[in-house]
């Protein structure tokens, strides 16, 4: 398997916050190119929205990530990016520390699992 460098993945993990704020797909792509050259482009699917927050009523839905596709040397690679804690409401997700089961049966953080499940339909 061809592996991309950890420098690229950590850089994307940092830039997902800024890139998920773009006002249009055109701006987002130009901004992406200004940062990474032509090695990446956005997948057809739009931004991934996730519901974060606590119990119903104080949940908010916001851009939580997106999918990038590699081009040129990076063709064949897909990058699924998720942002982390950016809004105060995200802390309600973080504090939801009960364990939950994934579909595959593994024990995971319930807060992230709920946020992930809310955007899963867009990923598949």
């Amino acid at each position: 398997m061809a592996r991309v460098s950890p420098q690229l993945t950590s850089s994307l993990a940092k830039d997902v916050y800024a890139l998920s704020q773009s006002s249009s797909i055109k701006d987002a792509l130009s901004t992406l190119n200004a940062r990474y050259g032509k090695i990446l482009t956005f997948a057809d699917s739009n931004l991934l929205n996730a519901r974060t927050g606590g119990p119903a009523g104080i949940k908010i839905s916001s851009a939580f990530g997106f999918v990038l596709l590699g081009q040129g040397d990076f063709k064949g690679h897909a990058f699924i990016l998720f942002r982390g804690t950016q809004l105060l409401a995200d802390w309600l997700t973080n504090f939801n520390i009960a364990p939950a089961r994934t579909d595959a049966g593994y024990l995971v953080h319930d807060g992230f699992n709920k946020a992930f499940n809310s955007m899963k339909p867009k990923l598949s």
Partner: protein
Amino acid sequence: MKLKIAKKSFRSFSFYLTIFLVSVAVLATSSTFFSSGANAVSIKQCLFSSMTGVVNLDGKPVANIRLVRTINYNKDIVDETVTDENGKFEFPAVFRNNYAGKILPMEFVVNQAIIAHHNGKEYEMWSGVKRKPEENSESRGKALQVTCELGLEDKLHIWVNDSPISSLCTWDVEPDPVLTFGKPEEDGL
């Protein structure tokens, strides 16, 4: 059998609860927990540095252009100004005290936008995402003095201090270089 499972999940729940309570106690007793090193959380944060500039249309400064600035950081902060007879304008710096971030650290992500209104048309003169809380991070510490040209067909897209800015403006700043990464490597797996 059922009872056993319930007991087990209760035990793991109390395990997580203990971790949670311990971390809250740590955070509450040590206010300096997040205020040193690379992850320092500053309380006073600059959301938009003070900006002075000139607005041109087809190379000529234009008076009476209404500029509306919107800053978004969990909520919208909106103010506006008008260019003078020489096309000049000024926006003061906007700060915020982030006390919550001291205990609950968060990424600094602030949306910046300036829309120019002229002759019934709207121009997206500035749209950026500020990722550094320091004042003048948009211009690497220098005063932010911009020259904007509403007649530009395409916005200029640059990154400064890990913050992307798409604008119709130029100012004295060296943008972040385009990042380059090695080709993906076969690891034989």
